[in-house]
């Protein structure tokens, strides 16, 4: 019986690790579903193509070549090395050791592990460079105002995780005496093995086992860290690019609720004093635009969870570059923070949101930020995973104007002019053609 203790222990932490992760994924989905409905299921072939190109192919990452290429190394490395997880899980559950080695034979097994080792070393180097860029070179976009202590730590914690995981993988291989003796696949670890040459076989075995355990436990912790981190993008980048907007970037949606009202107003046959039909008021939306996360649609909320806080958007935002308060990255981070707050509120109140006197507008995002946007789409263009910060800004402006009449004074004048004389300035519509005779 005692023989099975490690297997049982392994099964338990595996179940706990995956179980907690599943619980958080459910919470994540519930929170995203707090958003309004929007249909993004049309033009499927185009959507699959976008996902393949942008999420899988990382096609937009290389717009910035240095970080782009390093990121591809880490990404490919991370995915491929995790294939090794399959063996680890089987070994852990059944008490085997390198179960695939005899099945695949030394050549194939060695080839696979050899590649994993090379990748692990590359990932390690790339992650070190990332760390240097963040902390020594201090690339500006990682030091903006919204990069307060947690976002900054989060970025580094992930890097440490990857360094440790990669090291453990290599140490585990380096201290596996049989594996080193077989000499198939120890491409990198053979250079690490001599560091341990003073240890006895027994000790080496202990080190190997410890590295093995720490590696699997580390991966499970990492998996569960995702939900609290910007690293969620490694999962959400896929649905996020699939459901991203396909229309031209300049195209803003036309609010349907407004269309119905405008049509009624413009219809000469409509009776302005007519009583609304029974039940008709249910169809009128509670409000136009967005003042809180639940007024946004679910794609916008998913965007917020997907944001990697890379700051590519902010570093190309004309408003931010000229010292304005607006930062599209902050818009996404605020949306996520507020959504998390709403989610926790729901959890604490037995599944029902209890008014906390707060909202996304003002408590997180100020009108000053919103009014600084030129709608230039640079943020949308730069985002490597198809996030649309502009759509949230516009939705909140709609709320400010249509619900609160809180536009800046000059904009109110502009709108009054359009209403009265069909131009943003105070010129008579009757003078529209004067230019031809001037």
């Amino acid at each position, binding site marked *: 019986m005692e023989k099975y203790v490690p297997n049982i222990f392994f099964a338990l932490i595996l179940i706990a690790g995956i179980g907690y992760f599943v619980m958080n994924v459910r919470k994540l989905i519930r929170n995203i579903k707090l958003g309004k409905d929007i249909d993004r299921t049309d033009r499927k072939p185009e959507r699959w193509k976008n996902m393949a190109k942008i999420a899988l192919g990382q096609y937009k990452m290389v717009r910035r070549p240095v970080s782009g290429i390093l990121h591809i190394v880490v990404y490919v490395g991370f995915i491929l090395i995790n294939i090794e997880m399959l063996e680890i899980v089987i070994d852990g559950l059944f008490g085997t050791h390198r179960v695939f080695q005899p099945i695949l034979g030394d050549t194939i097994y060695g080839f696979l592990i050899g590649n994993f080792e090379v990748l692990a070393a590359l990932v390690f180097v790339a992650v070190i460079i990332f760390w240097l860029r963040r902390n020594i070179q201090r690339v500006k976009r990682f030091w903006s105002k919204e990069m307060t202590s947690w976002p900054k730590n989060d970025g580094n914690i992930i890097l440490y995780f990857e360094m440790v995981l990669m090291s453990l993988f290599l140490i585990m291989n380096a201290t596996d005496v049989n594996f080193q003796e077989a000499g198939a696949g120890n491409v990198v670890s053979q250079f690490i093995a001599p560091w341990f040459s003073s240890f006895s076989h027994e000790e080496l075995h202990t080190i190997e086992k410890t590295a093995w355990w720490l590696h699997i436990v580390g991966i499970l912790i990492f998996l569960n860290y995702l939900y609290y981190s910007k690293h969620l993008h490694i999962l959400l980048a896929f649905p996020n690019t699939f459901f991203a907007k396909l229309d031209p970037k300049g*195209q803003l949606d036309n609010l349907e609720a407004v269309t119905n009202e405008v049509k009624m107003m413009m219809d000469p046959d409509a009776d302005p004093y007519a009583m609304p039909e029974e039940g008709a008021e249910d169809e009128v939306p509670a409000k136009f635009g967005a003042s809180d996360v639940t007024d946004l649609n679910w794609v916008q909320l998913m965007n917020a969870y997907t944001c990697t806080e890379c700051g590519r958007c902010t570093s190309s935002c004309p408003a931010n570059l000229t010292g304005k308060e607006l930062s599209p990255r902050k818009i996404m981070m605020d949306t996520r923070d507020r959504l998390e707050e709403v989610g926790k509120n729901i959890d604490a109140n037995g599944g029902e949101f209890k008014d906390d006197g707060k909202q996304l507008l003002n408590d997180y995002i100020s009108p000053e930020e919103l009014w600084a946007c030129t709608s230039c789409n640079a943020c949308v263009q730069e985002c490597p995973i198809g996030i649309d910060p502009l759509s949230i800004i516009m939705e909140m402006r709609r709320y400010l104007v249509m619900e609160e009449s809180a536009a800046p004074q000059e904009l109110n004048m502009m709108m009054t002019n359009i209403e009265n004389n069909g131009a943003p300035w105070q010129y008579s519509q009757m003078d529209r053609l004067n230019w031809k005779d001037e």
Partner: protein
Amino acid sequence: MNVSTMADMMAQGKQPEVLFWVGAAGSYDDRAKKITKAFVKILDMAGVDFAVLGTEESSTGDAAKRAGNEFLFQMQAMTNIEVLNAYEVKTIVTCDPHSFNTIKNEYPGLGGKYKVYHHTQYISKLIQDGRLSIDDTNLKGKRVTYHDPCYLGRANDVYETPRQLINRLGVKMTEMKRNKSTALCCGAGGAQMFKEPEKGDMDINVLRTEDALETNPQIIATGCPYCNTMMTDGVKFKLKEDQVVVKDIAELIAEANNL
């Protein structure tokens, strides 16, 4: 200038090949009116049978929509669509990328479906159809840089057409460090044109003008009346108005062809 309105055309029982949507800036703003006239001259030279709405044209509602006033936008849009549809307009050309974007992308959902061209696209088509050619001697060798209007570039992915036209002028074109999809906004879009900027350390148009001036140009070319205003102000702010002019591509073509 001889410009027919749709109402004139209708009275004569005629349908022009294209409607020229002049836009608010092109109708009222002194600088932008010059662009309007340059484009009319080009249309005349190519023998295009066009008309304008004149006093029946009204704001597309772009600025209102981007300011957040969806009501006003849709009122404007539906009024315009009613007029356009009553005249059975099929094809529209405009010198204003904002009107271009709104009519092309946002009007169809409200019942206004037209073939919409930005004037650089239309001019390019006229050349392809053999109806227009550009004289490449008048501006030969001039140093030119091109500022991408956001609503033409990123918003609608039109990057090459304006550049091809500039290259036909025989000029020496130099790209700014931020160009095409990475171009910096001039600062006018999203209704910013009509308000003071929020507080910050500089104005966007100045930053963008600095990008342009780095290429040491004689001419900053663009394709939007609002960008034109912003860049012109930027050049003035930088005290460079003696050395650098801001011109619309239509104006450059008119100049090259001695129109």
